[in-house]
């Protein structure tokens, strides 16, 4: 069966969304002083890198950047078997930071719950905020994003995929219907 794929956001659209989110983050946090970005593997880490570049262009400051793999903290490991575990790299102290978690697609909220548990094991940030490129709805936990690239109403059977090129630059966002 052939799946129907529709591009819902192109490269220019993604770039604009990242730029707007960067400005919103700076406005909300009144600058970049205590900011830190943590990208969730895989996808969120690449977007967090783009956000860091954009924040640097706007403010001239390099915001600390980390990546986190949440597999060790998943709530469905028993049902999923052994998923591959990626590397977590947070090369700075989280205590007192205004942490912005970055993910590509926000769906049930379970990934974010896992990521917050993981962050708490690393330190005690002042705040944890959430930035996502796509919010597709269907939350199963009381979690919401502070910064959203685009809200995309979806059905549960559908899938949203952020496509990255071989050079790890975002290409487009696709909505895949079963």
């Amino acid at each position, binding site marked *: 069966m052939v799946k129907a794929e529709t591009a819902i956001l192109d490269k220019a659209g993604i770039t604009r969304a990242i730029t707007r989110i960067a400005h919103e983050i700076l406005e909300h946090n009144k600058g970049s002083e205590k900011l830190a970005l943590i990208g969730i593997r895989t996808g969120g880490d690449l977007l967090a890198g783009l956000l860091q570049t954009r924040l640097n262009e706007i403010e001239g400051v390099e915001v600390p950047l980390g990546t986190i*793999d949440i*597999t*060790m*903290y998943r709530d469905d*490991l*028993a*049902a*999923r*078997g*052994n*998923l*591959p*575990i*990626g*590397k*977590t*790299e947070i090369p700075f102290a989280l205590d007192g930071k205004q942490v912005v978690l970055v993910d590509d697609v926000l769906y049930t909220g379970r990934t974010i719950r896992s990521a917050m*548990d*993981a962050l708490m*094991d*690393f*330190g005690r940030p002042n705040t944890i905020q959430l930035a996502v490129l796509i919010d597709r709805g269907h939350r199963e936990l009381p979690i919401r994003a502070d910064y959203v690239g685009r809200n995309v109403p979806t059905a549960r059977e559908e899938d949203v995929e952020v496509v990255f090129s071989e050079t790890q630059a975002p290409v487009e966002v696709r909505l895949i219907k079963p």
Partner: protein
Amino acid sequence: MSFKHKHILGIEQLSKEDIQLILDTGDAFKEVNSRDLKKVPTLRGKTIINAFFEASTRTRLSFEIAGKRLSSDTVNISGSTSSVVKGETLEDTAKNIEAMAPDIIVIRHAHSGAPHYLAERVNCSVVNAGDGAHEHPSQALLDLMTMREHKGSIEGLEVAIIGDITHSRVARSDIYALSKMGAKVRLCGPGTMLPVGIERLGNVEVFTDMRAAIKDADVVMMLRIQLERQSNIMLPSLREYARFYGLNPTNIQLAKPDAIVMHPGPMNRGVEISSVVADGVQNVILDQVENGVAVRMALLYLVSGVESMQTT
């Protein structure tokens, strides 16, 4: 390409892809060990029994720490304090352990094949922590992880393993693992300590002259003279052994300048390895111990995933 092994009985049963996945998973878990808060909830609610029917400090401690850092409940039983001394058979001990519903049994036993015997008789996962002179898979995996860390890749490495090959389960597991990963193994020891036909286990060349064995090697791994396993005298004296098969500041220079020196421990300083080399800049012996915890976390995580997929 997911992991399919419910038990880790030996390296012999693992494929190159399996080994690669274990090492990659070990790399990821290593980060947990560098945190201030060294615990992740991955195996919460799982029970792991470390059944060590033979003396061990390093391996038992390493498995116990690995289990605890993954939030599992780890319980230790050792041969000398268990009902084995009261005459209970391994099968009865296993059945009794199983009745308490553990998820993983980690077993060390003086008899080769004991973990296999156990795996056929219990429902939970079995991890071999060393059986007789057969295999010691977690040791070989931490050796490979350490080599990969220092050399970038295992393929093409020349690895010299020197000492009592006959009694060494570490050597057997390393031969399987290194051969599968594309490294070349040079085995060296006195004739009495080199089993006939050992070269058939993998990509192996056998030496009796240590100088030839370590010439241009990338890795020099020294094995302990296992005095407790010598049923009949295989060497005239420890002094003579040290002279012909000990690693010292002179013969180490025959290896590549950036060669690393490994030892599975415990070391007999002054016998198979001189203190100068054991504490020298080329030694990675404590890196091996550090990686041991990470690689054992990977093994427990991977077998536990297979186990829970089968029961749900």
